[in-house]
């Protein structure tokens, strides 16, 4: 455990060194996220037309919650896969394999570090979103719990994509494809989709979680308990993705070592 903590500290420090060194890029990243939100939110508002102030407040809260979930998920989706590819290209990946307790520990430490740094960056982003939407979100223990489970599922999925990157080195636009999908889930109203689609959404990462999160933020999902169907499905989804992601990553690592894919043979 101390090894994981040590690696986590190393990763957080590395992220902050880079944020500081490339300050302009870091601010630009944040602005990009804000502009995406502002563009989509204002478009939706103009389409929705005249609705009651309560409905506007609920819509704004749901969109802020959905976008925050997208922001955290998007960062982690691109970071694991892209980092592994970049590190394989620059030769540092081999050092991580040689030096660490196991690459999976580095990935876990990196996920935690990514969350820490993203959380620090999310504060100004959240303020900007709230000012733009002229609203904020209702946070409760249920909100945090759902948010946590949503992220756990997405992190498991990111680990799975990382395993694919180890094996195939170039996964192209696969992480980006899921980012776009998540952005859609973040803004679209998933509560009204047909029941057949709902069962598909239940097995996808992010979708079920963001649907619940938006419901809680807008005050519509008041009856959510630890034993409710939605919550149990979300819990199973999160556990499933973490287990599947970790198992697949370890398998990919073993296969990559067997086939010599970590080298350049």
């Amino acid at each position, binding site marked *: 455990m101390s090894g994981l903590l040590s*690696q986590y500290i190393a990763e957080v420090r590395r992220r902050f*060194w880079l944020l500081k060194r490339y300050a302009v890029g870091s601010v630009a990243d944040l602005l990009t996220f804000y502009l995406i939100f502002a563009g989509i939110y204002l478009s939706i508002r103009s389409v929705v037309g005249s609705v009651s102030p309560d409905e506007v407040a609920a819509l704004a809260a749901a969109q802020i919650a959905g976008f925050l979930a997208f922001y955290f998920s998007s960062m982690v989706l691109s970071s694991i896969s892209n980092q592994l590819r970049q590190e394989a290209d*620059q030769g*540092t990946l081999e050092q991580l*394999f040689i030096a660490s307790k196991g690459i999976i520990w580095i990935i876990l430490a990196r996920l935690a570090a990514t969350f820490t740094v993203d959380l620090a960056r999310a504060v100004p982003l959240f303020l900007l979103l709230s000012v733009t939407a002229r609203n904020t979100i209702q946070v409760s223990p249920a909100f945090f719990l759902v948010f946590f489970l949503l992220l756990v599922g997405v992190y498991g999925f990111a680990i799975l994509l990382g395993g694919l990157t180890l094996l195939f080195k170039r996964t192209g636009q696969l992480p980006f494809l899921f980012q776009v999908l998540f952005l859609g889930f973040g803004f679209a109203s998933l509560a009204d989709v047909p029941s057949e689609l709902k069962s598909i959404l239940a097995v996808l990462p992010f979708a079920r979680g963001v649907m619940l999160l938006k419901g809680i933020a807008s005050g519509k999902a008041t009856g959510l308990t630890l034993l409710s169907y939605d919550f149990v499905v979300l819990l199973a989804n999160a556990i499933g993705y973490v287990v599947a992601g970790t198992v697949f990553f370890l398998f990919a690592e073993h296969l990559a070592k067997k086939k010599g894919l970590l080298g350049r043979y």
Partner: protein
Amino acid sequence: MIAVKDLWKVYRLGWIRPRPIPALRGLSICIRTGEVFGLLGPNGAGKTTTVRLVCGLVHPTSGAIIVDEVPVTARPPSTRPIGAVLEGNRNIYWNLSCWENIMYFARTRGVRIAEARSRAEALLTDFSLLAKRRDPAGSLSRGMQQKLSLCCALISDPSVLLLDEPTLGLDVASAAMIRDRIRDLSEALSKTILLTTHNLELAASVCDRVGIMNHGRLVQSGTVSEFRSLVSSVRVHLELKSPLTDSLCKALRQMRCVRVESMQDGHSISIEAASTEQFPVGILATILRSLDEEGIPLTSVSTRQPSLEEVFVRLTEGDGQ
């Protein structure tokens, strides 16, 4: 100590119908503590695969790798006493400074922070990088990046160091500096070092022993002087001012111990023997007489030991599958 026993590695390339590519075929090497062992060989001989197997980056098909009395697969990577610099300057984060790189790898290897700081200071001083500690690694020269890679590999004070082409692409001064540091690490700190190189001069100057690999096998191993004596210990080299006649050239090429090579303005003749006692003085006398009769003057006559390069070429040429 590194002991490699009957190591086989067959890569299977492709996903649908994997094609077997044998990279190592029963390699066995024993490298003693504090020894510098150089692996030489042409491209594709299996040198880099050997280093990657010892690092644990590649799983062997069969065979054993023992580092400091323990099989390499029996403990997690972070507890293996191995530091490695693979592919020269490609082992560091170019967007981090020298200090940040070393501290990051120290954390990754589980070195305590206070210890890491003092070691990093000492390493940066030793490798003349202290003045550059805050500079991004990407802004350093290739030689400095190579030195920084070594610092990162040494931060956990490993007993075994693996160096894959440590002087590749370096200028003469940087290569000399790296060469000196490798000798220091072995002599002063008793590090066991396995290095791969195409640079025979480097191997001759730093290695206690060298092994020549070809087609995944160790063709020969021994000290550099043993290698030289293996091919020939005595050689008389004649350089001619004008070309040989065809008939004389043909006759010479049929003689035992004689090699005839074409040069820009003429030919050169080498007569070799395993020892002074076995040197064919009669053949030399015959050659000199024939040259005199044909009126072919000599440019120079010299006796010399073959270079490691010549030994290398001799040992690897014609070594089939």
